[in-house]
């Protein structure tokens, strides 16, 4: 030991430095945090603006000042305005926010736990399962919960989406819950349901096929206050549960080995989060149909703007998804006046160029 010590003292520790020492890094980090908080605030503001515009647009057009008056002092505006705004347009406009946030969070966490930039409710077959459930009801009147015939379509969609998620869950457990297993199972699910959908369309009547096709385009117009309440309740339960795992989820992006070394249990976390986000996606899809793209791109935009620290990435994904769908809702009303184009078409058509612009113009390493 003595010879060792003398060796150490003969060896003055030199810094490993790559450049002269910088100013205190904590201050740089505080500035980074502040910048991210400002970005989140800006997104929230943009979201509110988009919500107001969305409320103002429709067969009867209102001024933004009227909308804001109806929002904050409902007693001061005409009855017709109040009824149209609160009873007809508000559930649809808010549904856009809740569904957008739900799909985007679901995509964000799937990308996180699977370390795969292509993961989204679509890639894991959850949307395909939902479509199949809805198609069963639309084409053949099959109701998986006979007691609730009125809700046959969303219930069928939800049940099939959750069955898909559970199938992936339990099948992947047999193979050790690896990323590859989950992704491959998801792809298998997509193909199974696509074939079944084709089969349904082959046997169904022309009218039923149109209904199925329209459903798969996604539409917010059937939103009601009760449906909105359910979707919001699920979001309000799942988000705090995900936030509780914030540090662990961020660590998952460093790879399983690193996450484990930091005390995270990757397999258990992956299963838990898979179920939570499947629930989010299933609820969203079952009420409004398959709205693609938001679950894939919302998180990527959030990642470009805010990085992957879940304290910013999670709310950022929610806001980006909500904003995308809200703007989509606005555009779906204004592109062809008098016609509401299904929102699923809008999000893809408008979102993709914007997404490409972001990727091509951003210097930062984003995946």
């Amino acid at each position, binding site marked *: 030991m003595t010879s060792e010590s003398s060796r150490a003292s003969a060896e003055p*520790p030199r810094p*490993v*430095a790559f450049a002269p020492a910088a100013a205190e890094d904590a201050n740089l*980090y505080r500035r980074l945090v502040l910048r991210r908080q400002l970005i989140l605030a800006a997104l929230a503001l943009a979201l509110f603006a988009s919500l107001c515009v969305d409320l103002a647009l429709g067969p009867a057009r209102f001024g933004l000042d009227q909308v804001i008056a109806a929002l904050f002092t409902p007693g001061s505006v005409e009855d017709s305005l109040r009824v149209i705004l609160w009873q007809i347009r508000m559930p649809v406009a808010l549904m856009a926010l809740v569904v957008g946030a739900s799909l985007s969070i679901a995509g964000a966490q799937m990308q996180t736990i699977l370390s795969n930039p292509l993961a989204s409710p679509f890639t894991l077959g959850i949307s395909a399962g939902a479509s199949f459930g809805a198609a069963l009801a639309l084409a053949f009147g099959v109701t998986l919960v006979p007691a609730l015939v009125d809700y046959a379509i969303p219930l069928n969609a939800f049940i099939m989406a959750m069955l898909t998620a559970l199938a992936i869950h339990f099948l992947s457990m047999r193979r050790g819950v690896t990323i590859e297993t989950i992704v491959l199972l998801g792809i298998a699910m997509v193909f199974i349901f696509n074939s079944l959908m084709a089969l349904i369309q082959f046997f169904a009547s022309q009218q039923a096929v149109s209904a199925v096709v329209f459903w798969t385009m996604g539409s917010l117009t059937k939103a009601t206050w009760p449906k909105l309440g359910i979707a919001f309740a699920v979001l309000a339960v799942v988000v705090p549960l995900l936030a509780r795992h914030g*540090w662990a989820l961020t660590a998952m992006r460093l790879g399983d080995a690193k996450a484990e070394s*930091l005390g995270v249990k990757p397999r258990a976390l992956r299963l838990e989060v898979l179920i939570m986000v499947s629930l989010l996606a299933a609820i969203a899809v079952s009420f409004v149909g398959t709205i693609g793209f938001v679950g894939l791109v919302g998180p990527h935009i959030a990642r470009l703007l805010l*990085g992957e620290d879940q304290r910013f990435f999670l709310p950022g994904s929610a806001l980006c998804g909500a904003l995308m769908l809200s703007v989509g809702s606005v555009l779906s009303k204004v592109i062809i006046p008098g016609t509401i184009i299904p929102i699923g078409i809008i999000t893809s058509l408008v979102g993709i160029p914007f997404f490409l612009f972001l990727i091509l113009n951003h210097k930062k*390493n984003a*995946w």
Partner: protein
Amino acid sequence: MVTLTLDRLSARYGRRQILDDISTPPLHGGQVVALLGPNAAGKSTLFRRILGLLEGDGEVRITGTSSERPVAYMPQDNGATAVLTVYEAVLLARMQGRRLKVADADLKEVDKALAALGIDTLAGRDIGNLSGGQRQLVGAAQALVQSPDILLLDEPTSALDLHRQISLLSILRRLAQERNMLIIAALHDLGHALRFADQALVIESGRLVDCGPCEQVVTPQMLRRTFQVEARIEPCSQGRPQLIVEAAI
């Protein structure tokens, strides 16, 4: 002072026995222990077993610590490319299992870890844009920032240039002494082991074949038997033992 004792430790992956009956005398804080052995000898598995990531017979006894998580482990780098800055990646390692809110004290620990390893200038860089060597130092900072009593490092110098290899090992050696920390590092360079480690553990096919002060363990006989190389160990002009490898057998 922290003390680590391994008592009849074993581990298996499925039916394959990876570690078999490994026992060590008490290893005390304040020193650097080199974990030596050829490829696939079970070095990483031993680290994972000590950390509790693998089940198996035997016992890992840690005494003399009040920390809830006394052991930090730096695995070999896997090249993950999360969109995080170096500062965030190191902070993240400190915050695991804690509340979402970051305290000033945590930021101070991150500053200290980055400064100790001389990578404070990298703080704002994205980890995806770092070189292999820089990533390895970030990995070391992630382990150090947890303020561990026992630090397990899996080939911490494998991607570093010679200057940084020597620097990192000198720094680790100093930190072990300053903080009374026990550092166990899997090293492939036996010359580094001779120079920086107090003790050495040698494992071969999952069994501990030798354990003791580095100079007594790293011998031409051990090198021939475990690593299949012909080598001499001679004092250099300053009296330090020097490893001279002549040929692979």
